[in-house]
């Protein structure tokens, strides 16, 4: 009877251990996933900004292409904001702890970025050059404020 209980205990422990390992592994996996995903979105946002630069300089006309870039930026922000679960940083991530210790400011940063991106979309649709330039300058400022406070330089 005692022997049986021992064996049972051992089995349960093994099973629990296995489950725990799977859980931890998948959590780490999910975390790596979430980091890679938000970095991809940010990278596309950066490319979107690069695509808008010639329009600002006047070497490209303001039109549908600019509108599409701005729309992508807006959409990516709304996806990226949910990809910062508490503590999700690693050696491959430039996310700083301040994201979670001063979370309200971080989320406000996303609100402002989305708002500014929407203003760029709108000004592009109206082909209103001055508004476009003002909105793009504002949008650039939102990237900078957030990266100054919540992102570290890469390793």
């Amino acid at each position: 009877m005692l022997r049986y209980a021992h064996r049972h205990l051992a089995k349960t422990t093994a099973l629990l251990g296995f489950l725990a390992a799977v859980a931890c592994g998948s959590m780490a996996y999910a975390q790596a996933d979430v980091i890679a995903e938000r970095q991809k979105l940010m990278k596309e946002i950066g490319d979107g900004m690069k695509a808008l630069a010639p329009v600002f300089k006047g070497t490209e006309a303001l039109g549908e292409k600019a509108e599409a870039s701005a729309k992508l930026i807006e959409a990516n922000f709304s996806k990226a904001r949910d990809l910062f679960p508490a503590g999700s940083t690693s050696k491959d991530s430039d996310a700083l702890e301040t994201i979670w210790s001063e979370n309200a400011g971080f989320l406000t940063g996303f609100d402002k970025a989305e708002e500014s991106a929407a203003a760029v979309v709108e000004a592009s649709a109206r082909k209103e050059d001055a508004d476009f330039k003002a909105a793009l300058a504002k949008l650039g400022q939102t990237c900078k404020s957030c990266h100054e406070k919540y992102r570290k330089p890469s390793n």
Partner: protein
Amino acid sequence: MPRPSWLRILLGVCVLGAFGLGAALWVTRPEPLAANKLPADHVDDVENGRELFLVGGCLSCHGPDPAQNPQADTALPSGGKPLPTPVGTFFPPNLTPDPETGIGDWSPETFANAMLRGVSANSEHLFPAFPYTSYQHMTVEDVLDLRAYLMSLPAVRQAPRGDSVPLSAIARPFIGLWNLLALDGKNFEPDPTRPASWNRGAYLVEAPGHCGECHTPRDIFLVPERSRYLEGGPHPSEAGKVPSLRGLVGGRAYATSEDLYDAFKYGEMFGYDGLSSGGMGQVQANLASINDSDLRAIVDYLASLK
């Protein structure tokens, strides 16, 4: 003859040590500029002073602390903003011309001593958290113009906040020893084989711009390594690395000099996200507002670094 006891030997060593230390501190005591180093016939150029104020990033460290004083004008260097460093938190002082709490009653010599020698108004060593290791290479004329600009600003009363740097009183006299390694008292040397714009850029980067304070790796004494000038390395006070400024143009991020110019001028607005974190954001904002010819000079110089 009685044999010397261990105690006596120890005492002897201590006395010698104390003597040596005293001598070392004496040799490295704060050394002000000779008064005749200042040109007698200098005519202040306030505009040039403003340019150096921007390139030098004085406001980034000497700005007010909105948390302490929400009404303060953040465009004035009235001091008090916390500057966290590995040795503790400094609250850089008021640089507006208020006679009691600022630099209003400082002579030109006093100001030049701080900038070129790292010596404070009360003749003590200043901590190199104030990057005088770079400012020392500025010309005396530029330092005088910078002072003239500061003196032209509205005076703000903002009493100095005590730094919270443990051991600061004990450590201060020893800064002279470190300065022996870090200060050479030399002015910037132009390279006659290079064009004027290149030399202007090299000067702005090395002296007022103090780019090397972050972009040059430090040796075990925390002195920037001249032989690895601007090669990048661990961030001196925060997480992450400071990138190298060598081989930038033609590299991954900046195909041409024009791209590097755009990165300084427009930063994130043009998708250059690599000049925001780790304190670079304020530097970029300053560089975006300097004279165009100076920014072009900085780009010319950086583009030449292999």
